[in-house]
């Protein structure tokens, strides 16, 4: 099923389908290694609309909630 990374269960892994946003957003994500077809893991999601921690290529990074909501993944379940 197609869903934003923020809807994944904590600790779960999925493949990035697409990044919904403009050039700058895609570049910012690309700089951190977040690109289409990459495997991404949701490490933590902070309450009160807080940030999201993800892992790509063994590297963890913190993203704001709105940014993370625009990372659309494919969850086989």
């Amino acid at each position, binding site marked *: 099923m197609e869903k934003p990374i923020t809807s994944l269960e*904590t600790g779960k892994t999925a493949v990035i389908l697409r990044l919904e946003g403009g050039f*700058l957003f895609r*570049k*910012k994500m*690309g*700089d*951190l*290694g977040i*690109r289409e077809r990459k495997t991404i893991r949701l*490490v*933590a999601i*902070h*309450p*009160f*609309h*807080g*940030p999201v*921690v993800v892992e790509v*290529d*063994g*590297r*963890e*990074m*913190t*993203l*704001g*909630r*709105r*940014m993370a909501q625009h990372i659309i993944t494919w969850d086989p379940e």
Partner: protein
Amino acid sequence: MKKIVLMGNPNVGKSVVFSRLTGANVIASNYPGTTVDFSKGRMCLGKERHEIIDAPGTYSLEPSNKAEEVALEMFRQADLIINVVDATNLERNLYLTLQILERKKPVILALNMWDETRHTGITIDVKKLEYKIQIPVVPTVALSGEGIHDLIRRIDEARSAETIEPMNENERWIKIGEIIRNVQQVTHRHHTLWDWISEASIRPLTGLPLALIVIFAALWLVSFIGETLITYVFDPLFSLYTPIAMSISTWLGPGFLHDLLIGKLIDGQIDYIQSMGLLTTGIFVPFAMVLPYIIAFYSVLAVFEDSGYLPRLATLTDTLFHRIGMHGFGIIPVFLGLGCNVPGVLAARSLETKKQRFIAATLIAISVPCMAKNAMVFGILGPYGFNYIVLVFATLFIVFVSSGLILNRFIQGDSPEICLEIPPYRKPDTLTVLKKTWMRIRWFLQEAIPFLFLGVLLINVLYAIGFVEWLGSIFAPVIQGWFGLPKEATTALLIGFLRKDLAVGMLLPLGMSPLQLVIATTLLTIYFPCVGTFAVMFKELGIRDMIKATAFMAGTALVVGGGMRLILLGI
């Protein structure tokens, strides 16, 4: 003379390589964005001297922020590039490498953090990589110095890759994929204890309690180290010094010179806090009261910075910081500001927008007390009880959050979300920590001592010409009527512009109640930054924003001072 530029992604150790190559001391930390400007140095290769530049970290040659623009400009001027890459993250780092190679400048690749590839299960075939990208590749561990000699020896071999032609983003990633498949092997490894700690410290349920424990432990450690240094080092030193100062006092006899050098004797004795002489208070405050805590604070901070904990703390505090117009990374300028506001305001540069930088700088100036002042607050309020100290810091925390909420609402502009890479935990290297602490202490001494002397000098002159009384009577309505403090406190606030630590000391002879002291020391943080902070804020924000910030400070001081008087003194 050639211009050699160090380039690479953020947090790959460029600054450490730089200091290895030049012998220059630069501050490096285990989080991205420590270098916002660039540093220049020199190195000799054989008989030739070269200029070497440490550019800020950048992910690509298409800049998307200030630091990356600086990096691109450095690239344009370069005759030779040392491309520093993180060996444990080769794939992503190669993107910049390819962009550099496409532009046909001579390049040599430093495969840094080579030691970490072993325990992360990564094997890289260096020879094959050299063949693939057609430039020399040298594995290095900049922190320990391993491989640096090879790097220097092979700089002459730097060359441009002949067959790598300009390509678009997609082609670049395909090319990188092909290189990676050929040169790198990743063996699966089991999760270690550190992986577990790493995740626990960034998840909300486990991370927040852990953060509280870590912060309290750090505060305890700072005060423990500070007190120990005072009891066992600085107090004994000054008890040796007192007889010398007393004999100078006797030898000088009464007069202006005595007032200036020794100051007032209290019950026939030197009182190091209240005497206000250059040779008494002027050296006691910086060395015996402030320096021990500066040493303590900066050594603990260095361990914090190099361990990689700060980006995790930034993640945990992001929810709060986002509501006050910054994002979690704002914790780093705030932490630095706790040592001294000047580097704190400078570090605010690493935030993306003007609004964020304005809020960070203003909040630091208004509600983040520096270590020099804290040391004096501990020294002066401590004897009355720990709860008074807590009262000062709790008030400042409330001011920090509420000012932030207000500024976020009324300052125009964007506050983008956090987007921060979390570096792996690393064991801080003892030598690096000591070196960094020493650099900061030396900086403190160079900055603080002249202003302290100037402050003491000014106090004596102002008293002598009667300016203090005059000023006191002018500000009496505010100080006495509004804040409920004796009018002599005006002088302390005036001197606070030069040195906040000295100003706290000046409150002591006024015979105030502990609660009045709480109000006065809190106001001393809020009302105005010291001259050093004022100068960097002016430089960083510009005149218009500085006026805005100043007006906000004055307003906050009036509101908070009046409020505290009402609540604490009940009058």
